[in-house]
């Protein structure tokens, strides 16, 4: 029983070492970050089952990728619907600067290099994710960061899209947003992949007092593709964040939204939906950290697990002594559609303050027989009734995506079928 973790770790180290050796020399404005990332990564084996945070996460889809194939980004694919009106779409997966030739709308401006130096990594540092393996990987590889300042209310939805396509490679995407006091932004990230490649996403957002961010992340992958996504948000008081994430189809997804209410007194809403089938694995590790009193969290995480799919949810809520009168609610709901599917779900509440409300709940169930029968008793065939119920189940999360997401047909993405008429 001792041999397994050692061999995993050796294999993991070899995998990391091969990847690091294959990477091109650090270059560009992020060269120093890349150097530090690589140094840190070289000292860290791949996470494995001995790491509490990765205990249930099957990394097979990641280690199945040839590290040598990850030295460069995959050839771009870019199959996408036309951008809706009132949407500013930026393509993150091309060689060009995503801002080249783009007329930014009122309220959006690029961060200057000194500004970037000051803020980059700040949110990661504050919420303790600086040294997470997926973060180090992104730092080691990303040569560019899309860094924007947001002033006032930005009308268009900012859409950040990538498609890793079917070819091999590693697509590192890094975004840094600074929302000034009372600024508001609607942001939609859409990440797609159709083959054996790795998409690494690292987003940081700093919200000033009274700022508001509505953030959607929609990710559609393939059975041999991997997505590692980290979203770190730091919130000043009176700010509001809604983060809605829906993923489906990836061989492996590891999604880590980490929210930090720096002084409390802010509002955070998290909505998650992960769909796994075949032998896919999806893992959401969320963390909510209240740094002061009067903060609130409203979190709903949903899962559909079919075939031999595997789902992991770990929802950490940290309420230190300073965070009195915190009001947090977390609900995890999982739908098991197969006997071979597996769901691991765990709330992780760390509450020191005494005057708080922290509700949490978790359910794992099959499709409700009563709901199915109700639909059937109205003449709707069993398979269609099941599809309707699945759609309803997903809609509870998808309806909270920014409206611009409709162009991407999120329901088709998560259920893999065209919209049922």
């Amino acid at each position, binding site marked *: 029983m001792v041999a397994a973790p050692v061999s995993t770790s050796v294999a993991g180290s070899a995998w990391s070492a091969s990847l690091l050796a294959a990477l091109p020399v650090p270059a560009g404005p992020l060269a120093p970050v890349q150097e530090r990332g690589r140094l840190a990564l070289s000292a860290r084996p791949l996470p494995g089952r001995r790491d509490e945070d990765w205990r249930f996460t099957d990394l097979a889809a990641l280690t199945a990728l040839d590290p040598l194939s990850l030295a460069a980004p995959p050839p771009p694919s870019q199959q996408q619907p036309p951008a809706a009106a009132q949407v500013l779409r930026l393509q993150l997966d091309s060689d060009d600067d995503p801002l080249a030739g783009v007329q930014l709308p009122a309220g959006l401006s690029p961060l200057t290099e000194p500004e970037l130096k000051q803020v980059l990594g700040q949110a990661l540092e504050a919420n303790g994710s600086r040294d997470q393996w997926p973060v180090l990987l992104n730092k080691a590889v990303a040569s560019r960061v899309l860094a924007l300042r947001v002033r006032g209310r930005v009308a268009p939805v900012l859409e950040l899209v990538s498609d890793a396509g079917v070819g091999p490679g590693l697509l590192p995407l890094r975004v840094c947003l600074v929302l000034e006091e009372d600024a508001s932004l609607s942001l939609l990230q859409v990440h797609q992949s159709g083959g054996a490649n790795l998409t690494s996403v690292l987003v940081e957002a700093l919200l000033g007092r009274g700022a508001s961010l509505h953030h959607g992340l929609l990710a559609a992958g393939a059975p041999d593709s991997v997505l590692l996504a980290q979203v770190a948000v730091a919130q000043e008081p009176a700010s509001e964040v809604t983060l809605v994430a829906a993923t489906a189809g990836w061989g492996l997804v590891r999604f880590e939204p980490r929210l930090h209410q720096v002084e409390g007194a802010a509002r955070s809403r998290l909505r998650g939906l992960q769909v796994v089938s075949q032998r896919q694995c999806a893992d959401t590790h969320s963390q909510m950290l209240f740094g002061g009193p009067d903060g609130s969290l409203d979190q709903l995480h949903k899962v559909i697990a079919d075939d031999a799919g595997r789902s992991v949810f770990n929802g950490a809520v940290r309420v230190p002594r300073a965070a009195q009168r915190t009001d947090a609610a977390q609900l995890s709901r999982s739908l098991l559609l197969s006997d071979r599917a597996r769901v691991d779900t765990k709330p992780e509440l760390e509450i020191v303050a005494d005057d708080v409300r922290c509700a949490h709940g978790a359910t794992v169930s099959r499709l*409700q*027989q*009563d*709901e199915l*029968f*109700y*639909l*059937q*008793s*109205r*003449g*709707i*065939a*069993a398979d*269609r*009734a099941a599809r*309707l*119920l699945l*759609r*309803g*189940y*997903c*809609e*509870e999360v998808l*309806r909270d995506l920014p409206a611009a997401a409709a162009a991407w047909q999120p329901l088709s993405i998560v259920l893999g079928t065209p919209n049922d008429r």
Partner: protein
Amino acid sequence: MIRPDAPVLLEICDLEARVDDQPILKGVNLTIRAGEIHAVMGRNGSGKSTLSKVLAGHPAYTVTGGTVLFRGENLLELEPEQRARTGLFLGFQYPVEIPGVSNLEFLRVATNARRAEQGFEELDTFAFEDLVRERLQVVQMDPAFLERSVNEGFSGGEKKRNEILQMALLEPLVAILDETDSGLDIDALRIVAGGVNQLATADNATLLITHYQRLLDVITPDFVHVMAAGLILRTGGKELALELEERGYDWVDQELAALEVA
């Protein structure tokens, strides 16, 4: 309306059914002709709700004996959806909430499934909206409820109105209404009962399952059946319901005891 020559819509013979290993129905006999309104009364646990669920095809119940003919065909071999499409309707005692599924879409899919069976063409979104707005008036329902998820957050009365709205859209031949009066205040009861009365014709039939006389004050039954211990113990006219109201159910126990002795 009793017409002895009217066609038989539903014919239940010696029906026995169980849930898990518990026998509930122990030989129910009931014949329903077009144009008739029947009421089945009885205490909790008498089997009256089970009868409605067995007829609708609820998977939790197993039929262990007897036959049910619906328009002359074997009802028991049909899937629940096929029973509905051919014109059997169950109004639920506790209508199910289905979050995320739009009520309007649910109603349209259900209506089209019934229409297809009848050989009518499917209604598109616009044609259906016209139809549903017209039928909403049967139960004086606010169109806002169409935009919500099926029954989600509806009050008891709103759920029951939504049931009768479905009945108005599906135009069943036999409607079984399971405790449709439960949880209704007197105004809601009048509206729901008014809807049922409007939908009753010489060609269809209604089976009301109820505890109380008060529903039968507003929907006049042609036949009243008293159910106990999985059997229909006695059948009479509407005066039987009044008698029950007056005397309570104690005499039922005596008759049952007499049956067991015999």
